[in-house]
């Protein structure tokens, strides 16, 4: 085989690989959506799940997923952005900065089940809370924090130097420059990164199994007092999220319509993540246009 022919064969192989990757995604998405969408109905979304009978919905799991996500992001975003500011603006090259960087790397590559075990030890057993939403959210914070720090650091570093230098040249202090110049112009990128991270948190299950638990008590949606045990807003109640629910019905479920519930739940989960992704792009470019006055 001469080199021209080998080149053509190789090109064909690379195109085939690309087609295989596209086909995998197309297959997965169409399987989830075709099987799942027909099970999604208002009834499915608004009925509590059942442990034994068919016809259960995912109302509580869906609420729990969003609530855990919300609490996680409330904790993660300020700390993550703060850490990002430190790494981009204050950190001097040295041992401390290196060790912070290594720690971010370690945290980012920890298996989520290990984070779940740490959460079980720290937020469930040591504190004596048992399985709680706040324990789950704190475990997810450990899971999400390195991503948030990296996103914010990159966003802050990509702010043009001229803007920062102009502000400093006007005699404005460093911290004030960060607050009024750098953060606003890094905001769209940070927001996009935060929404993408939220999609990752939304689908996470292994870290929540042993921290937020695999059950949900009876919830009363008219009870808005966060201290009451039946209130959905109570932070100290066990909560099974949608991702955990999919795992639980498939591996230990007793209900006869496991397939339907799992199909519907998977579709809801994947659709939510897709919406997060689309929203991240759309909001990011929208805000970018507004603040930079470019087309």
């Amino acid at each position, binding site marked *: 085989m001469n*080199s*021209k022919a*080998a*080149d053509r064969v*190789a*090109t064909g*192989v*690379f195109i085939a*690989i*690309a087609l295989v*990757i596209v086909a*995998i*995604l197309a297959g*997965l998405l169409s*399987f*989830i959506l075709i099987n799942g969408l027909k099970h999604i109905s208002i009834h499915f979304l608004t009925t509590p799940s059942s442990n034994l009978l068919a016809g259960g919905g995912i109302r509580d799991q869906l609420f729990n997923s969003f609530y855990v996500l919300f609490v996680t992001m409330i904790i993660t975003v*300020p700390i993550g952005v*703060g*850490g990002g*500011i*430190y*790494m981009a*603006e*204050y950190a001097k090259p040295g041992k401390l900065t290196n060790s*912070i960087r*290594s*720690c971010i790397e*370690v*945290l980012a*590559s*920890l*298996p989520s*089940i*290990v984070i779940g*075990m*740490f959460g079980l030890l*720290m937020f469930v057993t040591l504190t004596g809370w048992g399985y709680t939403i706040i324990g789950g959210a704190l475990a997810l914070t450990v899971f999400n924090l390195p991503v948030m720090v990296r996103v914010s650091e990159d966003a802050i570093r990509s702010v043009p130097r001229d803007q920062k230098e102009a502000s400093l040249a006007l005699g404005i202090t*460093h*911290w*004030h420059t*960060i607050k009024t110049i750098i953060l606003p112009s890094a905001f769209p990128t940070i927001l996009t990164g935060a929404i993408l991270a939220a*999609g990752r948190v*939304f*689908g996470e*299950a*292994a870290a929540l*199994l*042993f921290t937020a638990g*695999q059950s949900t008590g009876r919830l009363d949606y008219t009870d808005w007092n966060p201290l009451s045990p039946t209130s959905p807003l109570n932070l100290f109640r066990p909560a099974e999220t949608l*991702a*955990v629910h*999919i*795992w639980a019905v498939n*591996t230990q479920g007793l209900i006869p319509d496991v397939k339907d519930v*799992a199909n519907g739940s*998977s579709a809801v*989960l*994947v659709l939510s*993540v897709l919406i997060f*992704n689309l929203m991240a792009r759309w909001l990011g470019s929208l805000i970018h246009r507004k603040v930079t006055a470019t087309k």
Partner: protein
Amino acid sequence: MEKSIPAKARLLKSEKNWMNGEVRGKIIVFLCAIIMISATIAITIFLATKGVQSFTKNGVSLIEFLTSKQWNPADPAKPLYGALPFIVGSFAVTFLSALIAAPLGIGGAIFMTEIAPSWGRKILQPVIELLVGIPSVVYGFIGLTVLVPFVRTHIGGLGFSLLSGMIVLSIMILPTITTIATDAMSSLPNTLREGSFALGATRWQTIRRVLIPAALPNLLTAIVLGMARAFGEALAVQMVIGNVKDMPHSLLDASATLTTIITLDMGETTFGSPENNILWAMGLLLLIMSFAFILLIRYLSSRRKI
């Protein structure tokens, strides 16, 4: 006289305020960064102290844990703590899935950077991002409903097998490998390509003889990162691998990994009991492996050529 004092006082006052805001801001963001270190140290210390309890308190032998094939920690008369089948299972699915995902991922990366940099990237980039976005339980569920019956009817065995686990994992780590490999390929300087083409080499010769060797340390980093993810993945594997606590002898045998046994048994055993403590020892092993993967990546990136 009267003029200068208020001015001086004002200057001092405002400077003091600025200093306060300045220092306060720096301290706050510094604390945020310190949380990273404290979380890492806390995880390491907690898991290490809990993980060694099996060996210090319950008297399990480390050699037995790492080399014995017999696993029955709940037996009251003679508990057996051999985790070798799970260690082998973990390494088997990790290497086998990397074996499938690495050529696909690097091939995809080369397609995006060398074959069709304009339109190919526009199509494949979002595809990869969507694959990252699909949650791991959904991969597990699809594996359970499509892959397991397929393996059972067309290839043989129960369907719940190493083979199913490795296929599910290879799809899950594909985006990781592709993304990093794409970065590695596209960060190669164009002079390499132009120099090679100018010598009369074809595109394939350029890719094989020039570009891949130049990007090799980064491509290996991509594969190791993918393997790290595969090693730690729990739920998706647990749903398809069958969770049999014996040594696997072929790809079609059901088996178990460290993560799947932890997932299954952690909720079933009493906290603090010997059969629970041994799970923490397995968790510690996962943590140590995760450190080992990071060291390997460090070593590879120190050998970076360009």
